[in-house]
């Protein structure tokens, strides 16, 4: 589907489910913008953004440029520490030392969900490919299976971003297993 169709598709989601979104490098930021805009501004659903590709600070800057209020978004940043970037602790950003600490990612998401009592929320993983660089496939699929099951129990939407250019059969198999819907955006 193209970007326009993707935006329309997002509007149809009214019940929590698990969606994998395959994007290309060229439309990566646009797709993030559409997702955040729809869930945050239109659906008014709090968002937990798990950043394993780009530090949360950089994503916040991009969102500001796009006019999306990043104050509505909680970040679980698992890349800044290993990049030795400066980390500014805020109420809305928690840091995980490394993307290999998959259990800690779940714990931090649970912490945000419990602390801010979000009945309806969206959790975004950006991206499965970045996590796949740091973790073996067995543990990554175990993580996503557990995480998606937990989020279903919390009635949360779950979006897993995957980069088309970096994908492979193993990643596709994991996404097929944990996703209710798979969307490919050209």
């Amino acid at each position, binding site marked *: 589907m193209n970007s326009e169709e993707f935006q329309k598709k997002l509007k149809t989601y009214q019940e929590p489910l698990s969606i994998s979104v395959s994007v290309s490098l060229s439309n990566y930021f646009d797709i993030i913008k559409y997702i955040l805009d729809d869930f945050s501004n239109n659906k008014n659903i709090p968002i937990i953004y798990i950043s394993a590709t780009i530090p949360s600070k950089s994503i916040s800057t991009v969102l500001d440029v796009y006019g999306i209020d990043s104050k509505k978004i909680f970040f679980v940043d698992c890349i800044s520490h290993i990049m030795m970037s400066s980390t500014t602790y805020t109420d809305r950003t928690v840091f995980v030392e490394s993307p290999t*600490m*998959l259990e800690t990612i779940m714990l931090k998401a649970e*912490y945000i969900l419990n602390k801010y009592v979000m009945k309806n929320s969206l959790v975004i993983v950006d991206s499965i490919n970045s996590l796949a660089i740091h973790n073996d496939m067995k*543990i990554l699929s*175990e993580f996503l299976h*557990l995480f998606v099951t937990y989020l279903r129990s919390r009635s949360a939407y779950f979006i897993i971003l995957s980069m088309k250019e970096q994908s492979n059969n193993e990643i596709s198999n994991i996404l097929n297993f944990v996703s209710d819907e798979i969307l490919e955006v050209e």
Partner: protein
Amino acid sequence: MEKVRERCLTGIEALDNILNGGIPKGNTVLITGSAGTGKTTLSIEFLVHGAMKGEKGLYISVTEASEKLLENLIVYDFFSKEMIQKGIIFIDIPEIYEKLGMNKLQFSMEDINLLIENIVKIVTEFNVKRVVIDSITSICYRLQTEEKIMEFILRLSKALSELGCTTFLVSELLPSAKGYSQYGVEEAVSDGIILLGNLERRGDLLRTLRVVKMRGTSHSRATYVLDITSIGILLVPLLKGGGELI
């Protein structure tokens, strides 16, 4: 039909689920692990949740002055200093030793009796329902023989259990230790063992928790990863990726 024992909820939701509804009331549980694994934090949270339910707690500090401990304690969102002052009694054991004239390095059976009597007296006087001794290892150091350690823990457990108290005995382990306690006796006479550990996996250090034993309830024996947060201890299952508990 199996008789279900009354439970003492730790207040740590995931741990209570692991224990099938909490710790059987009156149990003496060894909270064991090496340095930095979260033993004291877990024990304090157990007392705090009790205090929130109106159950008086007693924290007997052996190794660290309780004032210093409170200063360094993580600030939970769900309790205040006033609540601690009202719901939990903090006692530094050197004060008890001094009061009882127990200034010897090695305790006799008489000293042991005196110590137990004193703890029981405090528990009775204040109607305490949750007790933490942090750490039992430091007391055992002064008991020295296995017989005395066994006698002390058994008699203290029995007395506190009869008073309806659920007790945590904090045990310090060396990272290289093979068993669950320094003297080997503590683990044998406790009703339960909760093992806290550090798991090193590909350079990451994860805090872990496992309920090794708990009399009076069926429970999971799986390993969980633990996080200490301002909303309390959170647990998720350990992903099976290899690594050794250290």
